[in-house]
């Protein structure tokens, strides 16, 4: 078509010039978009770096061993994040134990078992939408359902259930995407050898997609670890100067789940508490806790990338 458009000119050199002008014009537009993109991403990245840098400058000097091993206190020099990081850890653990099996199983069912009809489409749309529901709405639901109706109180279990609910859509969606990415030739290969659907999933699809599924889980967890609003809604305390009962006991049966019912606080709530204090020294504490939180999130993300890399290395098609 381009040939026909240009061939009206008489001489060969006119024709070439027309082509070059056209190429130059289109290349210019392409380059302009590239520049615009670079500009936008630089601004976004710089703002982020500035924020993190400010937090580090303010908080890093406050970070020492004692900060990690002390309970919060009204004396800002004595105050630490012991109950907060232990709380975050236990809540994350509970969240993971609940969300991972449920989310992965739901993802497998929706992707591999559910008939592709209007009901499945409806569920799919809803699951995707749930990922975008404001977290405080989950908090309200949890306050009514877990705290009050099921009478679980302001416990680690309630917090774990709430955050599990929050990240469940993320886990389901990433599981489905991971399963969908496995080429159908491998499914057919397994079926052709007489594998049942479950054998096909368990022996092939799950191991091949485990890297991507794990990545989704970790991304979900790193979202959960920074959540504040839903936990405040269910009544997490902002000042806790004791630890939950240890899961490991000296007497039989050596393992205790009493900690699940204990009250708790988590890192972002501890931060929130310090920020709302008038004394500027507590702002420093908050910045230090923020540094810990950011490092935790970055570590989780780095771990996710590493896992994806490791598990993908042996698997290609």
């Amino acid at each position: 078509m381009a040939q026909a458009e240009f061939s009206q000119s008489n001489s060969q050199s006119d024709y070439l010039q027309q082509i070059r002008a056209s190429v130059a014009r289109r290349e210019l537009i392409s380059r302009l978009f590239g520049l615009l993109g670079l500009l936008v991403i630089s601004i976004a990245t710089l703002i982020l770096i500035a924020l993190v840098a400010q937090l580090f400058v303010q908080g890093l000097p406050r970070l020492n061993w004692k900060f990690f091993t002390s309970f919060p206190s009204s004396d800002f020099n004595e105050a630490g994040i012991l109950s907060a990081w232990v709380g975050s850890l236990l809540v994350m653990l509970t969240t993971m134990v609940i969300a991972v099996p449920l989310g992965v199983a739901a993802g497998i069912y929706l992707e591999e078992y559910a008939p592709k009809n209007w009901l499945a489409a409806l569920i799919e749309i809803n699951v995707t939408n749930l990922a975008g529901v404001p977290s405080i709405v989950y908090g309200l639901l949890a306050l009514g359902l877990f705290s009050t109706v099921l009478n679980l109180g302001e416990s680690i279990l309630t917090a774990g259930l709430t955050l599990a609910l929050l990240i469940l859509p993320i886990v389901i969606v990433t599981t489905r995407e991971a399963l969908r990415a496995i080429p159908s030739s491998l499914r057919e290969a397994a079926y052709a050898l007489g594998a049942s659907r479950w054998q096909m999933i368990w022996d092939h699809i799950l191991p091949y997609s485990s890297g991507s599924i794990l990545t989704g889980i970790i991304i979900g967890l790193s979202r959960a670890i920074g959540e504040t609003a839903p936990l405040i809604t269910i009544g997490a305390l902002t000042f806790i100067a004791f630890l939950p009962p240890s899961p490991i006991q000296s007497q039989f049966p050596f393992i205790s789940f009493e900690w699940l019912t204990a009250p708790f606080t988590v890192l972002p709530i501890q931060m929130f508490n310090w920020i709302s204090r008038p004394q500027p020294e507590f702002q420093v504490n908050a910045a230090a806790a923020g540094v810990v939180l950011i490092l935790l999130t970055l570590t989780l993300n780095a771990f996710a990338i590493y896992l994806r890399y490791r598990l993908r290395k042996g698997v290609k098609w």
Partner: protein
Amino acid sequence: MVDTRVVNSSVMERKAEVKNLDFYYGSAKALKSVSMVVWDRRVTALIGPSGCGKTTLLRCFNRMHDLYPGNRYDGEILLDGVNILEKQIDPIEVRMRVSMVFQRPNPFPKSIYENVAYGLRVQGITEKSSLDEKVEKALQGAALWNEAKDRLKEPAYNLSGGQQQRLCIARAIATEPNIVLFDEPTSALDPIATSSIEELMNELKEQVTILIVTHSMQQAARVSDYTAFMYLGEMVEFNETNLLFNKPADQKTQDYVSGRFG
């Protein structure tokens, strides 16, 4: 139009027989009253232009179509006298008896050994000595043992394309199926790998019945004993390979094998 009365039937047994098979993808009819015979321990080739239904017919033999919704069979494929298209027959049972080699090599991202052993593991064989023995036998059957015996633990993806396809053949014969289906098994391979696969089919037919879909008439002529020519979902002609190529009874077959369309 379809001649299923073939010479020499005194010494040959019918392994499978297709009787008036219709097949639908949703409402689209892809096979129209197809009938043919698959003789025991012979190579039968399905040829025809793209979209003629040859792969569709092949995938009826191991009920691959059951994996996708909306597909429907109407008619019979008798395997040793039993209609494997019956609703009450589990497709898994059919696939344990009729295995398949695909168009592109599709080994699992596992070791060479595990690829061959998978069909056996699926059937519940766990004993190591039995697995070892059957894996070796299958790899020998697929002419891959000499190249692979020292690297059984290596990932299958380290093999070349032709070796991968022979690995897929080993995987398909490890369970000692009644029929092996080949769906254009050499279309992704170079000429040297292609000829090694063709040689292999010649050896394999002493033990197993082979049904092959191929785009290449030369390949059909080289490897098959019987050839079926299909066109627009219909079985136009079915005969001994050399008769079909040299004395086609139908004008369409004549035109196709002489390269007038395709």
